[in-house]
């Protein structure tokens, strides 16, 4: 993908796009991911701009098929290609490192989270082209090599999935599942903790394989003999300690007991905890949670949510929380982005969004939640369903279902306009909130939303 593949949605987008919060951890810019299907090119994600700030929880909501999972998976290049096609955009990641002042234990300099941003290597923090004048070390996750990416995946950016049963390897014990993460990204520290010197790479590799129980023949014999045997025991104690610490963090009672269990022997909630332990094992900068509680019962869901937000606050991890349930998002997130048909319809702080939803789609979603007050049979449903994403026209994606749609909506694409006041930033992609002068149209051509609705 070359950089000039990235096309803004319209010329207006460039002028209107406010300066994206410069220091955000992740900046998704104009992300487009398409799928080749029998019927044509499905524009699953079609120009998504999204910022994830350090330590915040941002919600990504939308109906099924709106592109939430594809967006999230694109951050880690987990979308299968083919049939997927990266049609443009970039995902800028500004990594952090262990705080030099406190070496990770937390101090005032790092806001008690133990990690701090890295200065741009090209300009040493002064701001240059390479870091988009943020002064922060910046990599484009869509363009770095596979090796670099692997070093980030599971380590700096981790992901948990909807179905914990499918995401855990059924053939590995809980200990092995979590040990794997440590061995992959933290083998140096493990060897250190075990009192084994780091430098001896061969030893490290052998140890890693032995921890995976992947040693054969003569090596296995070797490990049973004196110089190795001792190291082996020390290492596996170190691994156990690390694994248990990770599990303890997720409030699993007596974690030692489940170390040798296989995933299928645990309940859904427990599996989700193991997955969280695995994801947070390396203190990632960002945790992507793709509907982590949809498969769980309400009573268990509440506890998992508490757990995620508690761990997140303690460690300063940013969370991208994907859900189709607005009430959940309201409860756990700081900011919310509403996705519709592969584009962001509205982004804002949680309180602001729920107090003053601006996009007709957001209003529709909110009104559709059944409640006691609404009379039976009088739920405000959004009519129709998500449109086909195959080769869409340049139009507001929502115009087929929008009650306020006017001809303009069917002929041009709205972009995200900043419409919040200083205290509460709020961006929305609907012509009803557009400036007619910028668009070059008459005010009467714009749609009008009935206020006070929702």
């Amino acid at each position, binding site marked *: 993908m070359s950089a000039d593949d990235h096309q803004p949605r319209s010329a207006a987008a460039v002028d209107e796009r406010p300066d994206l919060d410069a220091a955000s951890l992740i900046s998704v810019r104009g992300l487009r991911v398409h799928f080749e299907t029998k019927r044509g090119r499905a524009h699953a994600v079609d120009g998504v701009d999204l910022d994830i700030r350090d330590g915040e929880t941002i919600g990504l909501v939308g*109906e*099924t098929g709106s592109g939430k999972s594809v967006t999230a998976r694109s951050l880690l290049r987990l979308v299968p290609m083919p049939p997927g096609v990266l049609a443009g955009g970039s995902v800028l990641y500004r990594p952090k490192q262990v705080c030099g002042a406190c070496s990770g234990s937390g101090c005032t300099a790092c806001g008690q989270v133990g990690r701090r941003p890295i200065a741009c290597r090209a300009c040493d923090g002064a701001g240059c082209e390479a870091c988009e004048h943020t002064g922060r070390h910046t990599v484009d996750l869509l363009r770095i090599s596979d090796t670099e990416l692997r070093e980030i995946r599971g380590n700096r950016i981790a992901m948990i999935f909807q179905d914990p049963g499918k995401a855990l390897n059924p053939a590995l014990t809980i200990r092995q599942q979590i040990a794997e993460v440590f061995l992959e990204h933290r083998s140096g520290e493990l060897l250190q903790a075990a009192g084994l010197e780091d430098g001896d790479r061969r030893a490290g590799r052998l140890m890693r394989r032995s921890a995976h129980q992947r040693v054969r023949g003569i090596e296995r014999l070797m490990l049973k003999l004196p110089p190795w045997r001792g190291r082996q025991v020390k290492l596996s104690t170190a691994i156990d300690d690390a694994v248990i610490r990770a599990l303890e963090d997720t409030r699993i*009672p*007596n974690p*030692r*007991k489940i170390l040798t269990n296989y995933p299928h022997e645990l*309940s*859904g*909630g*427990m599996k989700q905890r193991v997955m969280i332990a695995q994801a947070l094992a390396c203190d990632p900068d960002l945790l992507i949670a793709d509907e982590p509680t949809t498969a769980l*019962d*309400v*009573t*268990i*869901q*509440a*506890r998992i949510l*508490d757990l995620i937000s508690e761990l997140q606050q303690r460690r300063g991890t940013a969370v991208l929380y994907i859900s*189709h*349930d*607005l*009430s*959940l998002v*309201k*409860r756990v997130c700081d900011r919310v982005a509403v996705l519709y048909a592969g584009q962001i319809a509205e982004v804002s702080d949680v309180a602001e969004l729920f107090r003053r939803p601006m996009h007709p789609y957001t209003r*529709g*979603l909110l009104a*559709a*939640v*059944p*409640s*006691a007050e*609404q009379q*039976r*049979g*009088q*739920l*405000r*449903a*959004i*009519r129709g*369903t*998500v449109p086909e994403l195959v080769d869409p026209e340049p139009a507001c994606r929502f115009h087929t279902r929008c009650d306020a749609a006017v001809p303009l909506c069917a002929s041009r694409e709205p972009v995200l306009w900043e419409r919040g006041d200083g205290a509460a930033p709020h961006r929305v992609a609907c012509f009803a909130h557009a400036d007619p002068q910028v668009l070059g149209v008459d005010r009467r051509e714009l749609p009008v939303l009935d206020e006070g609705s929702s």
Partner: protein
Amino acid sequence: MTAATNPLDRPAALHAGDHVLNVRAVRKHFPIKDGVLQRVAGHVRAVDGVSFDVPRGSTVGLVGESGCGKSTLGRVIAGLLDPTDGGVFFGMPAAERARLDALLQVPPEARSEAQAAELGDIDQQFRIDRLDKHRRRHYRRNCQVVFQDAFASLNPRQLVRDIVGRPLKAFGEASGSALTERVVELLEQVGLGRQHLYRYPHQFSGGQRQRISIARALALDPEFMVLDEPTSSLDVSVQAQILNLLHELQRERGLTYLFISHDLNVVRHMSDEVVVMYLGRIAESARSTAIFETPRHPYTEALLAANPDETDREPIRLSGSVPDPARPPQGCRFHTRCPVATPRCGWEVDDLVRIAGESEGALDGLKGVERRDPFDAKLVFDTSRQATATARSMQRDRLPDALAQAVRRVERLDDTVAVSLQSVDEPPLVEVAPGHRTNCVLHHDEL
């Protein structure tokens, strides 16, 4: 078993009027097969003694966590599964119902011959698995189901016309072009149209498929519909469309619904009455407003508190997960997770072992458990030191209060620990306020 002491939780005396359906002491146990020989190793007690009524024209909501037996009960009611015990009675007039309830209060072994004959007679007329051919057909056309999975409930190889027209064909109501016209009418009632007649299910979205399912269920103009989580695979926006449609159909046709769901918002919105199930039993049942405004069961309260929309409720966090329905807990089935459990709630040896096991070192070297009954057992260890460690972790001050008070004895002798607890029967479902039944002993005390 303790449940045998109350074979029939009395149904609420709320509605004297016309009922479409009466469920009486229904159990459904599934055998667990084990090994090469497929020996029966136990039973999953999916539904374990449930009684309630469905008044005509109303919507009864059935809620509970997954695996608590909602769908199984729905299937028994729809005649897809035969109950292991108890019965489902369809279209029974009030007089017969009173007769039946009186008869069922007599334990089976104490029934006189005349009583048994009378019971058999009622069964033959109204109990859905005992009906004669003619009555069964009447029941079949009047009790329809909409299934949870919008994708699995339509035959992928049939066209919409054949799917929706199938009941009409099976009952010989129409064929050929008359059938097609009837199908079009039905499709129009659920917001689809003639253009959808000749399409395959995979050409529709989830919401549209659920509409097709509803059209099929309506084809025979039934009195009663079991809706098994009809919207749980749909988005809120589409869910709202379907809920509106269901309500409209109910109003137009005077339908009666059994609405199964795990979503409290949906149940609250749709139901007149709510039955809360936990592990195959009814925990609480009452009018919808009563359940949501004055819940009388800690489980219901926890469900309500877990609802993300209920921000003003004090969050109650249940520990652990739903126990294995093959071995439901003694006493109140909810006591393993109940935040306000009392010493009378049925604490058993398993609880003691489970809670002791959470502390480091306890239960190491456990060789076996000799059970006298669920409340009395001997734990055998490899060494007496391990036995001591476990016994120490079971000391009163290390246990939750309610459990500690229920413990009668923890004694170590050599390498064994003998434990015994207060033995408790399963609490019955009691009507504590008009139409409001609960099996929580705390609320029984209020009486």
